């Protein structure tokens, strides 16, 4: 039943603005070509309930979802891209490893082994936790945090002139802290 706590979830394709919002967020982190490759033969579907979640579905999955009764919408489907908010799109942890191979250097911050542990515990990081960047990032921006082997650890807000220098936004430790 539809309640305030459990609103009826509906699935639909994004409108033009929503699609633009999602694509422009992803394009901040990966090239246009990588984005095209990621979306090749896939389609975005939005689940609209208490939150608007965006999923990327292969064609067989999409066909399957469309055949499901309207009262039985899936709880989760395909690749969870993130949450659509009024003015922003928040990338999910699910998409993180799929972005890493194509990541723009100016959106990547590499952290030390100690920094990795601290970040995965949900902490913010200081200069000492960060290795020398491939490209000097002078402006504050959202970044993907990677370890010394370039494996994705989460999302952060890098602010080179402030302390802490890297604010933790979302990290893989969530799977232990909240995802169980």
């Amino acid at each position, binding site marked *: 039943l539809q309640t305030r706590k459990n609103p009826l979830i509906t699935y639909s394709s994004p409108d033009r603005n929503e699609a633009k919002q999602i694509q422009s967020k992803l394009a901040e982190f990966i090239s246009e070509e990588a984005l095209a490759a990621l979306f090749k033969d896939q389609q975005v579907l939005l689940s609209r309930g208490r939150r608007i979640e965006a999923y*990327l579905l*292969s064609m*067989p*999955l999409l066909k*399957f*979802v469309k*055949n*499901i*009764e309207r009262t*039985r919408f*899936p*709880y*989760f*489907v*395909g*690749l*969870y891209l993130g949450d659509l908010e009024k003015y922003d799109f928040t990338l*999910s*942890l*699910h998409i993180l*490893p*799929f972005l890493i191979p194509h990541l723009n250097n100016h959106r990547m911050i590499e952290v030390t082994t100690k920094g*990795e*542990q601290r970040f*995965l515990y949900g902490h913010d990081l200081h200069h000492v936790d960060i290795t020398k960047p491939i490209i000097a990032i002078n402006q504050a921006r959202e970044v993907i945090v990677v*370890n010394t082997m370039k*494996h*994705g*650890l989460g999302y952060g807000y890098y602010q080179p002139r402030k302390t802490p220098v890297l604010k933790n936004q979302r990290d*893989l*430790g969530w*799977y*232990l802290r*909240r*995802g*169980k």
Partner: protein
Amino acid sequence: MVVDPDRVRKLAQHYGYREYMIKRYFELFGEETEAFLEGNERSLLKTIRINELAVNVQEAIHQLSSKGIKLEQIDKLPYAFQVMQSEVPIGATSEYLMGWYMLQSPASMWAVEALSPNETQYVADLCAAPGGKTTHIAQLMQNQGVLVATDINRQRVRALRSNVSRLRVKNTLIMRMDAANLPKQGMTFDSVLIDAPCTGEGLIPLDPSRKQSRTLKDIETLTKVQQKLIQVGVKLLRKGGIMVYSTCSFAPEENEQIINFALQKFPIRVINTGLPLGDPGFITPFGQVVDPSLHLARRFFPYKHYMEGFFICKLEKIHS
């Protein structure tokens, strides 16, 4: 088999079981009962499945061994390893969080191996949470095809979603619902996995409280659920489709007798699991004769196979 009640009482006291359980074990295992009980006392090593959707096996072994985690490959499962020694908690490493591996028992891996899904198939996993087998199926499907995972429990579905996300699975549709409602959606599948809710006696080596917490009434209640689930599974299969039914229970009422019930009612037959290990299913449990093809089912026992107790049966739908 006639068993001395004194012997039953002493064994029940010694090993901490309810007496009815010991009696039943004598009827099933005869003189091997003490070996069986002793086997349940041995602690089992943790096992992991390397998630080939995230990393190749060699890289994972190299990285984990550099952290002081000593692994030994499980025979005939190239991606499965026993954790022989670990200097860090195996369920909380960076690699775990990056989805490189899943803590999963070998018995449940064998259930998925018996299903042997491929990348072109439509597969359903009923009672899927927390997702060990679901993510394993996705791994064997190479993240392609369509995998529908259902579970009724809200909390457990969250864990399922978290594991699907952590292990980089993207061919899966999770539905929080009673699997009994799935056939109404008009879906049909090439393969169906039913890891049915059960009394879980097979998990005694991991959770000794089950020696006391289960009763015959639980078996009775659960068999109704299991019968319903297998009926749903058959409905969901296309002609020629494959179903694997598994439980982590020793009780024949939850295993052979459920399959026997299904064989009598539905157009299915038992086929070879293709597994290289395991004992045959019982064909005269507690003196009741079941379909002889049940010897093709496989049973795993802690005292013989050094893993949790498990039952796996592979079935084929003969016609619609």
